[in-house]
């Protein structure tokens, strides 16, 4: 496995791989987003208690799930950067952080505009909402630490350490609704994985939600790939392969692998 993985420590190999896999995330992401939006907004039935307001679920839940999923992937990149001193992994941390921060912000914002009509408040300091807010601060902290040092490598190292330490918050977010008495409801979908229970949502609502979860994964992954490629080009702008890519207007750099 190491023999297979090791070439990807080289920037041009990672760049070429990224260019190849980008359409496989971007195109399904866009298509599923279109399907999920129309299905969720127009065709899914209204909720018997919440009426049409529950349709916020179709952006709230995917954003919240991937705000945590991308945090874990960022922490793994940070671990690789720290243990094997692979600079591309540091750039991956920098590429993922703003996308994850955006997802976290989306989950908090859509939660607030859902909470106002349903709970009668935009915000409460319950365990779920507070731990999710801390996740946003962790993302912002990683972004800030990365650029806080004169030497970019020192910043990358510090950001990787914070990303790694912050992983402790992920199980806290997930289990907060079980460990504490929260205004936020308990798990509907992810308990399939963590508690081996079937999802507590009608199939007519579950399926468009699943479509949106995969749509968000595709879009967010595509954004991360685009950002990582930009970072690779920025760092290696003096090297011939990067100059070639930038001159050719982004035609695939296929002879690098």
């Amino acid at each position, binding site marked *: 496995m190491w023999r297979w993985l090791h070439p990807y420590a080289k920037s041009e190999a990672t760049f070429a791989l990224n260019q190849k896999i980008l359409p496989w995330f971007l195109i399904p992401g866009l298509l599923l987003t279109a399907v999920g939006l129309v299905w969720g907004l127009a065709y899914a039935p209204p909720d018997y208690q919440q*009426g049409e307001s529950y349709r916020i679920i179709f952006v709230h839940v995917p954003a919240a799930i991937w705000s945590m999923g991308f945090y874990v992937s960022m922490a793994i990149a940070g671990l690789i950067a720290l243990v094997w001193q692979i600079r591309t992994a540091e750039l991956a941390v920098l590429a993922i952080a703003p996308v994850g921060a955006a997802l976290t912000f989306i989950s908090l914002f859509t939660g607030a505009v859902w909470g106002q009509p349903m709970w009668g408040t935009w915000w409460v300091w319950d365990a779920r909402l507070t731990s999710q807010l801390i996740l946003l601060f962790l993302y912002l902290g990683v972004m800030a630490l990365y650029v806080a040092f004169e030497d970019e490598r020192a910043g990358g190292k510090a950001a990787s350490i914070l990303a790694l330490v912050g992983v402790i918050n992920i199980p806290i977010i997930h289990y907060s609704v079980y460990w504490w008495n929260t205004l936020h409801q308990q798990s509907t979908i992810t308990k399939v994985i963590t508690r081996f229970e079937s999802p507590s949502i009608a199939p007519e609502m579950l399926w468009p939600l699943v479509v949106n979860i995969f749509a968000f994964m595709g879009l967010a992954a595509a954004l991360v790939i685009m950002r990582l490629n*930009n970072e690779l080009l920025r760092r290696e702008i003096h090297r011939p392969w990067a100059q070639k890519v930038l001159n050719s207007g982004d035609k695939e750099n296929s002879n690098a692998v």
Partner: protein
Amino acid sequence: MQFDSWSAFIAMGGYGVYVWSAFFVTFFCIGLLALEAVWRRTKLRDEAKKQQARQQRIEKAKRES
């Protein structure tokens, strides 16, 4: 289709402001990140061009001196 008319669709059973602001902010954020990535690439392309022009100027000056 769960809605009889466009106005019913926009109204979202009285929750229109909440539902539409949630969807708007979501795709505004995602769109902003996408635009930033594309804009960044254009910037890098300009930067590369500038560097190459500078390199050529330096080499030309070396040859002529």
